[in-house]
Protein backbone atom coordinates (compact mmCIF):
# COMPACT_ATOMS: atom_id res chain seq x y z
CA UNK A 1 0.00 0.00 0.00
CA UNK A 2 1.39 3.35 -1.03
CA UNK A 3 0.31 6.78 0.10
CA UNK A 4 1.42 10.11 -1.33
CA UNK A 5 0.33 13.67 -0.91
CA UNK A 6 -0.97 15.00 -4.21
CA UNK A 7 -2.48 18.35 -3.33
CA UNK A 8 -1.99 20.77 -0.50
CA UNK A 9 -3.21 24.20 0.45
CA UNK A 10 -3.63 26.05 3.75
CA UNK A 11 -6.94 24.27 4.33
CA UNK A 12 -6.95 20.84 2.78
CA UNK A 13 -4.53 18.08 1.84
CA UNK A 14 -5.32 15.39 -0.69
CA UNK A 15 -3.67 11.99 -0.66
CA UNK A 16 -3.48 9.21 -3.22
CA UNK A 17 -3.57 5.77 -1.62
CA UNK A 18 -2.67 3.01 -4.04
CA UNK A 19 -3.81 -0.52 -3.31
CA UNK A 20 -3.18 -3.67 -5.26
CA UNK A 21 -6.84 -4.09 -6.19
CA UNK A 22 -9.98 -1.99 -6.00
CA UNK A 23 -11.83 -2.18 -2.68
CA UNK A 24 -14.99 -4.27 -2.87
CA UNK A 25 -18.36 -2.99 -1.68
CA UNK A 26 -18.04 -5.27 1.32
CA UNK A 27 -14.71 -3.70 2.19
CA UNK A 28 -16.12 -0.20 1.88
CA UNK A 29 -18.87 -1.12 4.33
CA UNK A 30 -16.34 -2.66 6.68
CA UNK A 31 -14.22 0.48 6.46
CA UNK A 32 -17.19 2.63 7.30
CA UNK A 33 -17.86 0.54 10.39
CA UNK A 34 -14.26 0.55 11.63
CA UNK A 35 -13.79 4.26 11.02
CA UNK A 36 -17.13 5.19 12.53
CA UNK A 37 -17.67 7.23 9.37
CA UNK A 38 -20.78 9.30 9.22
CA UNK A 39 -21.81 8.39 5.68
CA UNK A 40 -21.03 5.94 2.88
CA UNK A 41 -22.49 6.79 -0.50
CA UNK A 42 -22.18 4.85 -3.72
CA UNK A 43 -23.21 5.75 -7.21
CA UNK A 44 -23.53 3.56 -10.27
CA UNK A 45 -22.23 5.52 -13.24
CA UNK A 46 -23.47 5.21 -16.80
CA UNK A 47 -20.37 3.20 -17.77
CA UNK A 48 -21.18 0.63 -15.10
CA UNK A 49 -18.44 1.70 -12.67
CA UNK A 50 -19.39 2.21 -9.04
CA UNK A 51 -18.15 5.31 -7.27
CA UNK A 52 -17.75 5.17 -3.49
CA UNK A 53 -17.56 8.14 -1.16
CA UNK A 54 -16.96 7.75 2.54
CA UNK A 55 -17.47 10.87 4.65
CA UNK A 56 -15.55 10.82 7.92
CA UNK A 57 -17.27 12.09 11.03
CA UNK A 58 -16.66 15.52 12.58
CA UNK A 59 -15.54 17.14 9.33
CA UNK A 60 -12.44 14.96 9.14
CA UNK A 61 -12.65 14.63 5.39
CA UNK A 62 -13.61 12.15 2.71
CA UNK A 63 -12.29 9.00 1.08
CA UNK A 64 -13.33 8.23 -2.49
CA UNK A 65 -12.64 5.35 -4.81
CA UNK A 66 -14.20 3.36 -7.61
CA UNK A 67 -14.87 -0.21 -8.50
CA UNK A 68 -12.47 -0.12 -11.44
CA UNK A 69 -9.39 1.41 -9.82
CA UNK A 70 -7.11 0.37 -6.96
CA UNK A 71 -6.49 4.05 -6.17
CA UNK A 72 -8.26 5.84 -3.34
CA UNK A 73 -8.28 9.58 -2.68
CA UNK A 74 -8.44 11.05 0.80
CA UNK A 75 -9.14 14.75 1.28
CA UNK A 76 -8.59 15.84 4.86
CA UNK A 77 -8.03 19.04 6.87
CA UNK A 78 -4.35 19.92 6.49
CA UNK A 79 -3.65 20.63 10.14
CA UNK A 80 -4.89 17.17 11.17
CA UNK A 81 -3.72 15.41 8.04
CA UNK A 82 -0.94 13.29 9.54
CA UNK A 83 -3.10 11.81 12.26
CA UNK A 84 -6.10 11.19 10.06
CA UNK A 85 -4.08 9.56 7.30
CA UNK A 86 -2.25 7.37 9.81
CA UNK A 87 -5.56 6.21 11.23
CA UNK A 88 -7.01 5.71 7.78
CA UNK A 89 -4.09 3.62 6.59
CA UNK A 90 -4.25 1.48 9.71
CA UNK A 91 -7.95 0.81 9.25
CA UNK A 92 -7.49 0.12 5.56
CA UNK A 93 -4.86 -2.49 6.36
CA UNK A 94 -7.08 -4.05 8.95
CA UNK A 95 -10.07 -4.17 6.61
CA UNK A 96 -8.21 -5.69 3.70
CA UNK A 97 -6.54 -8.27 5.95
CA UNK A 98 -9.88 -9.27 7.42
CA UNK A 99 -11.38 -9.70 3.99
CA UNK A 100 -8.66 -11.99 2.68
CA UNK A 101 -5.70 -9.70 2.05
CA UNK A 102 -7.03 -9.32 -1.47
CA UNK A 103 -6.16 -5.68 -1.90
CA UNK A 104 -2.58 -6.29 -0.85
CA UNK A 105 -2.07 -8.71 -3.67
CA UNK A 106 -3.01 -11.97 -1.92
CA UNK A 107 -0.07 -14.08 -0.79
CA UNK A 108 2.40 -11.47 -1.97
CA UNK A 109 0.74 -8.67 -0.11
CA UNK A 110 3.42 -8.07 2.43
CA UNK A 111 4.88 -4.85 1.15
CA UNK A 112 3.39 -2.17 3.28
CA UNK A 113 5.43 0.87 2.56
Amino acid at each position, binding site marked *: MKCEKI*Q*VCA*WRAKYLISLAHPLSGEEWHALRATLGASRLEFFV*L*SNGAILYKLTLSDGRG*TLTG*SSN*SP*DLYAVVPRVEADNIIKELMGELLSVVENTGDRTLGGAEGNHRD
Partner: protein
Amino acid sequence: MTLLTAESLVEPHLEKGSILIGGEPHVVHCHYYNHFLQTSIEDAEGIYPVEEVLVWTAQEVAHALFRNIFTKKGIHDFNQRKSLVESLYSSCGFGKISLQGITSEGGEISTPYEHYAYTYAATFPSRPKGKRGVAYFSQGYIAGAIEAIYDLPLGSIGSEQTACLTQGDPAVRWRFYRLSHLLPLSPSVQEGKAQTGTLVQPRDTRVPMAQIRDAVLGLPLNPDPDTGLIEAFGVVLTRLPGNYYTLISERHFQRMIQVVGEEVRQVVLDMLIESGHVCAFNTLGGIMQSAEWDAVVRPYLDTPEDWIYGISAVLPAIGWGIVECSQRPSAQAWNLCLRNWYETTALAALPSPALDHSPFAKGLFAGIMALVYKAGIAEKSLTFDGVLYRQLFQEGRIYETEFLESRLQGGEKDVLRARVGHV
Protein backbone atom coordinates in the same frame (compact mmCIF):
# COMPACT_ATOMS: atom_id res chain seq x y z
CA MET B 1 -44.46 23.10 -0.28
CA THR B 2 -42.86 23.07 -3.72
CA LEU B 3 -43.36 20.06 -5.92
CA LEU B 4 -40.25 20.81 -7.94
CA THR B 5 -36.78 19.76 -6.89
CA ALA B 6 -33.78 21.86 -7.79
CA GLU B 7 -32.26 18.87 -9.58
CA SER B 8 -35.28 18.61 -11.88
CA LEU B 9 -34.51 22.11 -13.18
CA VAL B 10 -31.10 21.11 -14.52
CA GLU B 11 -31.24 20.64 -18.29
CA PRO B 12 -28.13 19.34 -20.04
CA HIS B 13 -28.02 20.23 -23.74
CA LEU B 14 -25.63 17.78 -25.36
CA GLU B 15 -25.73 19.50 -28.74
CA LYS B 16 -24.50 22.73 -27.14
CA GLY B 17 -22.25 21.36 -24.44
CA SER B 18 -24.24 23.44 -21.99
CA ILE B 19 -26.30 22.98 -18.86
CA LEU B 20 -29.30 25.26 -18.46
CA ILE B 21 -31.14 26.11 -15.28
CA GLY B 22 -34.03 28.54 -15.74
CA GLY B 23 -32.71 29.36 -19.21
CA GLU B 24 -29.32 30.41 -17.80
CA PRO B 25 -26.21 28.41 -18.77
CA HIS B 26 -24.51 27.08 -15.64
CA VAL B 27 -20.87 26.03 -15.43
CA VAL B 28 -18.84 24.16 -12.84
CA HIS B 29 -15.82 25.90 -11.33
CA CYS B 30 -13.82 25.55 -8.13
CA HIS B 31 -13.22 27.92 -5.23
CA TYR B 32 -9.68 28.71 -6.34
CA TYR B 33 -10.90 29.99 -9.67
CA ASN B 34 -13.82 31.81 -8.06
CA HIS B 35 -11.55 33.62 -5.63
CA PHE B 36 -8.85 34.38 -8.17
CA LEU B 37 -11.31 36.02 -10.55
CA GLN B 38 -13.20 37.85 -7.83
CA THR B 39 -10.06 39.07 -6.12
CA SER B 40 -8.58 40.27 -9.41
CA ILE B 41 -11.66 42.42 -9.83
CA GLU B 42 -11.85 43.45 -6.20
CA ASP B 43 -8.29 44.77 -6.48
CA ALA B 44 -9.78 47.62 -8.49
CA GLU B 45 -11.97 48.81 -5.62
CA GLY B 46 -10.03 52.07 -5.44
CA ILE B 47 -10.55 52.65 -9.15
CA TYR B 48 -14.28 52.11 -9.62
CA PRO B 49 -17.10 50.74 -7.42
CA VAL B 50 -16.54 47.02 -7.91
CA GLU B 51 -19.85 46.09 -6.29
CA GLU B 52 -21.52 47.45 -9.40
CA VAL B 53 -19.84 44.63 -11.28
CA LEU B 54 -19.66 41.82 -8.72
CA VAL B 55 -23.08 42.28 -7.10
CA TRP B 56 -25.21 43.77 -9.83
CA THR B 57 -24.24 41.17 -12.42
CA ALA B 58 -25.38 38.38 -10.10
CA GLN B 59 -28.60 40.25 -9.49
CA GLU B 60 -29.32 40.47 -13.23
CA VAL B 61 -28.67 36.78 -13.77
CA ALA B 62 -30.66 35.57 -10.76
CA HIS B 63 -33.60 37.80 -11.60
CA ALA B 64 -33.79 36.33 -15.10
CA LEU B 65 -33.37 32.71 -14.09
CA PHE B 66 -35.92 32.72 -11.29
CA ARG B 67 -38.42 34.73 -13.26
CA ASN B 68 -38.11 32.14 -16.02
CA ILE B 69 -38.54 29.23 -13.64
CA PHE B 70 -41.54 30.72 -11.83
CA THR B 71 -43.23 31.61 -15.10
CA LYS B 72 -42.56 28.37 -16.95
CA LYS B 73 -43.39 26.14 -14.01
CA GLY B 74 -46.43 28.19 -12.98
CA ILE B 75 -45.20 28.79 -9.43
CA HIS B 76 -47.12 31.72 -7.95
CA ASP B 77 -47.01 31.11 -4.20
CA PHE B 78 -44.35 33.20 -2.51
CA ASN B 79 -43.43 30.48 -0.04
CA GLN B 80 -43.04 27.92 -2.82
CA ARG B 81 -40.85 30.37 -4.69
CA LYS B 82 -38.71 30.96 -1.63
CA SER B 83 -38.37 27.27 -1.04
CA LEU B 84 -37.23 26.73 -4.60
CA VAL B 85 -34.64 29.51 -4.36
CA GLU B 86 -33.26 28.03 -1.13
CA SER B 87 -33.13 24.60 -2.68
CA LEU B 88 -31.41 25.73 -5.88
CA TYR B 89 -28.96 27.85 -3.89
CA SER B 90 -27.76 24.74 -2.05
CA SER B 91 -28.01 22.46 -5.03
CA CYS B 92 -25.56 24.69 -6.93
CA GLY B 93 -23.13 24.61 -4.01
CA PHE B 94 -23.56 28.24 -2.94
CA GLY B 95 -24.28 27.28 0.69
CA LYS B 96 -27.41 27.37 2.81
CA ILE B 97 -29.88 30.21 3.22
CA SER B 98 -33.36 30.73 4.57
CA LEU B 99 -35.63 33.34 3.01
CA GLN B 100 -38.34 33.01 5.63
CA GLY B 101 -37.71 36.45 7.09
CA ILE B 102 -37.80 38.15 3.71
CA THR B 103 -40.73 40.22 2.46
CA SER B 104 -41.27 42.31 -0.65
CA GLU B 105 -39.64 45.15 1.29
CA GLY B 106 -36.48 43.09 1.91
CA GLY B 107 -35.09 41.86 5.22
CA GLU B 108 -31.97 40.23 6.59
CA ILE B 109 -30.38 36.86 5.81
CA SER B 110 -27.63 35.27 7.84
CA THR B 111 -25.78 32.01 7.23
CA PRO B 112 -22.58 30.32 8.40
CA TYR B 113 -22.32 28.57 5.02
CA GLU B 114 -21.67 30.64 1.93
CA HIS B 115 -19.27 29.37 -0.73
CA TYR B 116 -17.05 32.42 -1.18
CA ALA B 117 -16.88 33.39 2.49
CA TYR B 118 -16.46 29.87 3.83
CA THR B 119 -13.70 28.84 1.45
CA TYR B 120 -11.92 32.20 1.71
CA ALA B 121 -11.90 32.05 5.51
CA ALA B 122 -10.56 28.50 5.35
CA THR B 123 -7.87 29.09 2.75
CA PHE B 124 -6.60 32.66 2.79
CA PRO B 125 -5.34 35.15 5.41
CA SER B 126 -8.11 37.00 7.21
CA ARG B 127 -9.17 40.34 5.82
CA PRO B 128 -8.72 43.52 7.82
CA LYS B 129 -11.60 44.73 9.95
CA GLY B 130 -13.64 47.30 8.17
CA LYS B 131 -13.12 45.78 4.74
CA ARG B 132 -16.34 44.48 3.24
CA GLY B 133 -17.07 40.76 3.05
CA VAL B 134 -16.40 38.52 0.09
CA ALA B 135 -19.93 37.24 -0.53
CA TYR B 136 -20.63 39.54 -3.48
CA PHE B 137 -22.13 36.88 -5.69
CA SER B 138 -24.65 35.64 -3.14
CA GLN B 139 -25.60 39.18 -2.27
CA GLY B 140 -26.60 39.95 -5.85
CA TYR B 141 -28.03 36.49 -6.48
CA ILE B 142 -30.37 36.74 -3.49
CA ALA B 143 -31.35 40.31 -4.35
CA GLY B 144 -32.32 39.19 -7.87
CA ALA B 145 -34.17 36.21 -6.46
CA ILE B 146 -36.17 38.41 -4.07
CA GLU B 147 -37.18 40.62 -7.00
CA ALA B 148 -38.31 37.56 -8.94
CA ILE B 149 -40.16 36.08 -5.96
CA TYR B 150 -42.23 39.24 -5.50
CA ASP B 151 -42.56 40.03 -9.22
CA LEU B 152 -40.58 43.22 -8.76
CA PRO B 153 -38.75 44.85 -11.63
CA LEU B 154 -35.03 44.21 -12.03
CA GLY B 155 -33.04 46.66 -9.94
CA SER B 156 -35.67 47.38 -7.32
CA ILE B 157 -33.86 45.71 -4.42
CA GLY B 158 -30.72 47.19 -2.90
CA SER B 159 -28.37 45.18 -0.74
CA GLU B 160 -25.32 45.24 1.47
CA GLN B 161 -23.19 42.67 3.22
CA THR B 162 -23.00 43.45 6.92
CA ALA B 163 -20.95 40.55 8.32
CA CYS B 164 -18.50 38.00 6.97
CA LEU B 165 -16.65 34.89 8.06
CA THR B 166 -13.51 36.42 6.58
CA GLN B 167 -13.48 38.99 9.38
CA GLY B 168 -14.09 36.59 12.21
CA ASP B 169 -17.86 36.99 12.27
CA PRO B 170 -19.69 33.73 12.99
CA ALA B 171 -21.87 34.11 9.91
CA VAL B 172 -22.30 35.95 6.65
CA ARG B 173 -25.10 38.48 6.82
CA TRP B 174 -26.74 40.65 4.21
CA ARG B 175 -29.42 43.31 4.34
CA PHE B 176 -31.89 43.75 1.49
CA TYR B 177 -34.17 46.75 1.03
CA ARG B 178 -36.58 48.25 -1.50
CA LEU B 179 -35.22 51.14 -3.49
CA SER B 180 -37.21 54.15 -4.55
CA HIS B 181 -35.35 54.27 -7.88
CA LEU B 182 -34.29 51.27 -9.94
CA LEU B 183 -30.63 50.36 -10.14
CA PRO B 184 -29.26 50.70 -13.70
CA LEU B 185 -29.18 46.98 -14.41
CA SER B 186 -29.45 45.16 -17.75
CA PRO B 187 -31.45 42.02 -18.37
CA SER B 188 -29.35 38.87 -18.58
CA VAL B 189 -28.18 37.71 -22.00
CA GLN B 190 -29.38 34.23 -20.97
CA GLU B 191 -28.30 31.72 -23.64
CA GLY B 192 -26.54 34.44 -25.55
CA LYS B 193 -25.58 33.63 -29.15
CA ALA B 194 -25.80 29.91 -28.49
CA GLN B 195 -24.55 27.57 -31.18
CA THR B 196 -24.60 23.83 -31.62
CA GLY B 197 -21.84 21.40 -32.36
CA THR B 198 -20.85 17.77 -32.22
CA LEU B 199 -18.49 16.10 -29.85
CA VAL B 200 -16.18 14.61 -32.46
CA GLN B 201 -14.66 11.19 -31.85
CA PRO B 202 -10.98 11.35 -32.93
CA ARG B 203 -9.87 8.26 -34.86
CA ASP B 204 -6.48 7.99 -33.26
CA THR B 205 -7.64 7.18 -29.74
CA ARG B 206 -9.79 4.68 -27.92
CA VAL B 207 -10.97 7.38 -25.52
CA PRO B 208 -14.77 7.26 -25.96
CA MET B 209 -15.58 10.97 -25.99
CA ALA B 210 -19.38 10.80 -25.84
CA GLN B 211 -19.37 8.00 -23.28
CA ILE B 212 -17.12 10.02 -20.99
CA ARG B 213 -19.23 13.15 -21.38
CA ASP B 214 -22.37 11.19 -20.52
CA ALA B 215 -20.78 9.50 -17.52
CA VAL B 216 -19.50 12.83 -16.18
CA LEU B 217 -22.97 14.31 -16.61
CA GLY B 218 -24.19 11.57 -14.31
CA LEU B 219 -21.56 12.19 -11.65
CA PRO B 220 -23.02 13.10 -8.29
CA LEU B 221 -21.96 16.68 -7.60
CA ASN B 222 -24.12 16.80 -4.50
CA PRO B 223 -23.83 19.42 -1.80
CA ASP B 224 -23.19 18.41 1.76
CA PRO B 225 -26.66 18.37 3.34
CA ASP B 226 -25.43 20.33 6.35
CA THR B 227 -23.50 23.05 4.55
CA GLY B 228 -24.80 23.26 0.99
CA LEU B 229 -21.19 23.19 -0.20
CA ILE B 230 -19.92 20.75 -2.85
CA GLU B 231 -16.56 19.22 -2.00
CA ALA B 232 -15.19 17.08 -4.81
CA PHE B 233 -11.83 16.42 -6.47
CA GLY B 234 -10.07 18.07 -3.52
CA VAL B 235 -11.69 21.44 -4.18
CA VAL B 236 -15.02 23.10 -3.43
CA LEU B 237 -17.17 23.36 -6.51
CA THR B 238 -20.00 25.60 -7.59
CA ARG B 239 -22.41 25.34 -10.47
CA LEU B 240 -22.66 29.02 -11.14
CA PRO B 241 -24.30 30.91 -14.02
CA GLY B 242 -21.66 31.19 -16.72
CA ASN B 243 -22.90 34.64 -17.68
CA TYR B 244 -21.84 35.86 -14.27
CA TYR B 245 -18.20 34.95 -14.86
CA THR B 246 -18.24 36.30 -18.39
CA LEU B 247 -19.95 39.56 -17.62
CA ILE B 248 -17.90 40.40 -14.54
CA SER B 249 -14.76 39.81 -16.62
CA GLU B 250 -16.03 41.95 -19.50
CA ARG B 251 -17.35 44.74 -17.31
CA HIS B 252 -14.20 44.87 -15.22
CA PHE B 253 -12.12 45.07 -18.39
CA GLN B 254 -14.31 47.87 -19.75
CA ARG B 255 -14.33 49.87 -16.52
CA MET B 256 -10.59 49.60 -16.06
CA ILE B 257 -9.89 50.91 -19.56
CA GLN B 258 -12.48 53.67 -19.14
CA VAL B 259 -11.04 54.89 -15.86
CA VAL B 260 -7.31 54.14 -16.12
CA GLY B 261 -6.79 54.15 -19.87
CA GLU B 262 -5.38 51.84 -22.52
CA GLU B 263 -2.18 51.34 -20.56
CA VAL B 264 -4.02 48.99 -18.22
CA ARG B 265 -5.41 46.74 -20.98
CA GLN B 266 -2.66 44.15 -21.00
CA VAL B 267 -2.39 43.74 -17.25
CA VAL B 268 -6.14 43.15 -16.94
CA LEU B 269 -6.05 40.68 -19.82
CA ASP B 270 -3.10 38.91 -18.20
CA MET B 271 -5.09 38.45 -15.01
CA LEU B 272 -8.04 37.01 -16.93
CA ILE B 273 -5.69 34.65 -18.78
CA GLU B 274 -4.16 33.72 -15.45
CA SER B 275 -7.61 32.79 -14.19
CA GLY B 276 -7.54 30.11 -16.89
CA HIS B 277 -4.24 28.78 -15.55
CA VAL B 278 -5.67 28.74 -12.04
CA CYS B 279 -8.68 26.82 -13.30
CA ALA B 280 -6.65 24.29 -15.30
CA PHE B 281 -4.39 23.72 -12.34
CA ASN B 282 -6.98 23.41 -9.60
CA THR B 283 -10.28 22.35 -11.16
CA LEU B 284 -8.99 20.25 -14.05
CA GLY B 285 -5.88 19.05 -12.22
CA GLY B 286 -8.14 18.01 -9.35
CA ILE B 287 -10.40 16.15 -11.73
CA MET B 288 -7.49 14.37 -13.43
CA GLN B 289 -6.36 12.96 -10.10
CA SER B 290 -9.66 11.78 -8.67
CA ALA B 291 -11.72 8.68 -8.14
CA GLU B 292 -14.24 10.03 -10.63
CA TRP B 293 -11.54 10.31 -13.33
CA ASP B 294 -10.31 6.82 -12.50
CA ALA B 295 -13.83 5.47 -12.78
CA VAL B 296 -14.78 7.15 -16.02
CA VAL B 297 -11.72 8.14 -18.05
CA ARG B 298 -8.57 6.44 -16.79
CA PRO B 299 -9.29 3.00 -18.25
CA TYR B 300 -8.94 4.46 -21.76
CA LEU B 301 -5.74 6.44 -21.34
CA ASP B 302 -2.73 5.03 -23.18
CA THR B 303 -0.79 8.15 -24.17
CA PRO B 304 -0.42 11.77 -22.99
CA GLU B 305 -2.61 12.80 -25.92
CA ASP B 306 -5.37 10.59 -24.54
CA TRP B 307 -5.33 12.71 -21.39
CA ILE B 308 -6.02 15.74 -23.54
CA TYR B 309 -8.86 13.97 -25.31
CA GLY B 310 -10.21 12.76 -21.98
CA ILE B 311 -10.33 16.17 -20.35
CA SER B 312 -11.78 17.65 -23.56
CA ALA B 313 -14.68 15.20 -23.26
CA VAL B 314 -15.30 16.31 -19.67
CA LEU B 315 -15.71 20.01 -20.51
CA PRO B 316 -19.14 19.84 -22.20
CA ALA B 317 -20.41 17.88 -19.22
CA ILE B 318 -19.55 20.76 -16.90
CA GLY B 319 -21.24 23.24 -19.22
CA TRP B 320 -18.28 24.96 -20.82
CA GLY B 321 -19.07 24.15 -24.48
CA ILE B 322 -17.80 21.65 -27.01
CA VAL B 323 -14.11 21.12 -27.61
CA GLU B 324 -13.09 19.64 -30.94
CA CYS B 325 -9.50 18.58 -31.45
CA SER B 326 -8.74 19.41 -35.07
CA GLN B 327 -5.49 17.46 -35.10
CA ARG B 328 -3.81 15.02 -32.80
CA PRO B 329 -2.20 17.12 -30.05
CA SER B 330 1.52 16.91 -29.40
CA ALA B 331 3.89 18.37 -26.85
CA GLN B 332 4.56 21.13 -29.38
CA ALA B 333 1.04 22.20 -30.25
CA TRP B 334 -2.64 21.50 -29.80
CA ASN B 335 -5.04 22.87 -32.40
CA LEU B 336 -8.60 22.97 -31.26
CA CYS B 337 -11.96 24.39 -32.13
CA LEU B 338 -14.56 25.54 -29.63
CA ARG B 339 -18.30 25.50 -30.24
CA ASN B 340 -20.59 27.38 -27.89
CA TRP B 341 -17.74 28.20 -25.53
CA TYR B 342 -19.67 29.78 -22.66
CA GLU B 343 -17.60 32.91 -22.41
CA THR B 344 -17.73 33.62 -26.14
CA THR B 345 -21.41 32.85 -26.41
CA ALA B 346 -22.32 35.40 -23.75
CA LEU B 347 -19.95 38.06 -25.09
CA ALA B 348 -21.27 37.60 -28.63
CA ALA B 349 -24.73 38.63 -27.41
CA LEU B 350 -23.49 42.01 -26.18
CA PRO B 351 -23.77 45.02 -28.51
CA SER B 352 -20.06 45.88 -28.41
CA PRO B 353 -17.95 43.77 -26.12
CA ALA B 354 -14.54 45.11 -25.18
CA LEU B 355 -13.09 41.59 -25.14
CA ASP B 356 -12.53 40.27 -28.65
CA HIS B 357 -11.74 36.72 -27.55
CA SER B 358 -12.06 34.54 -24.47
CA PRO B 359 -9.05 35.24 -22.25
CA PHE B 360 -10.14 32.45 -19.92
CA ALA B 361 -9.81 29.96 -22.78
CA LYS B 362 -6.31 31.23 -23.54
CA GLY B 363 -5.15 30.43 -20.05
CA LEU B 364 -7.10 27.23 -19.73
CA PHE B 365 -5.83 25.37 -22.77
CA ALA B 366 -2.23 26.43 -22.22
CA GLY B 367 -2.74 25.20 -18.68
CA ILE B 368 -3.92 21.78 -19.84
CA MET B 369 -0.87 21.48 -22.10
CA ALA B 370 1.37 22.36 -19.15
CA LEU B 371 -0.24 19.71 -16.96
CA VAL B 372 0.08 17.01 -19.56
CA TYR B 373 3.38 17.75 -21.24
CA LYS B 374 5.40 19.81 -18.82
CA ALA B 375 4.27 18.34 -15.50
CA GLY B 376 3.77 14.87 -16.99
CA ILE B 377 0.50 14.02 -15.29
CA ALA B 378 0.13 11.04 -17.62
CA GLU B 379 3.31 9.44 -16.31
CA LYS B 380 3.21 10.17 -12.61
CA SER B 381 1.00 11.52 -9.91
CA LEU B 382 1.58 15.21 -9.27
CA THR B 383 1.58 17.20 -6.07
CA PHE B 384 -0.53 20.27 -6.66
CA ASP B 385 1.01 23.02 -4.58
CA GLY B 386 2.63 26.42 -5.00
CA VAL B 387 5.88 24.90 -6.18
CA LEU B 388 4.26 23.08 -9.08
CA TYR B 389 2.22 26.15 -9.96
CA ARG B 390 5.37 28.22 -10.30
CA GLN B 391 7.05 25.54 -12.37
CA LEU B 392 4.15 25.48 -14.79
CA PHE B 393 3.01 29.08 -14.92
CA GLN B 394 5.79 31.29 -13.72
CA GLU B 395 9.51 30.63 -14.21
CA GLY B 396 8.87 27.40 -16.04
CA ARG B 397 5.98 28.57 -18.16
CA ILE B 398 6.37 27.39 -21.73
CA TYR B 399 2.86 27.19 -23.18
CA GLU B 400 0.65 29.94 -24.50
CA THR B 401 -2.53 29.98 -26.55
CA GLU B 402 -3.38 32.09 -29.54
CA PHE B 403 -6.75 32.60 -31.17
CA LEU B 404 -6.59 31.85 -34.89
CA GLU B 405 -10.26 32.68 -35.30
CA SER B 406 -12.70 34.24 -32.85
CA ARG B 407 -16.46 34.47 -32.99
CA LEU B 408 -16.06 37.89 -31.43
CA GLN B 409 -14.10 39.02 -34.48
CA GLY B 410 -16.56 37.67 -37.02
CA GLY B 411 -15.49 34.04 -37.05
CA GLU B 412 -17.98 31.21 -37.20
CA LYS B 413 -16.25 29.41 -34.35
CA ASP B 414 -13.35 29.86 -31.96
CA VAL B 415 -10.17 28.29 -33.31
CA LEU B 416 -7.19 28.13 -31.00
CA ARG B 417 -3.67 26.86 -30.94
CA ALA B 418 -2.03 26.11 -27.62
CA ARG B 419 1.68 25.73 -28.19
CA VAL B 420 5.17 26.15 -26.95
CA GLY B 421 5.66 29.88 -27.15
CA HIS B 422 7.71 32.84 -26.12
CA VAL B 423 6.20 33.61 -22.77
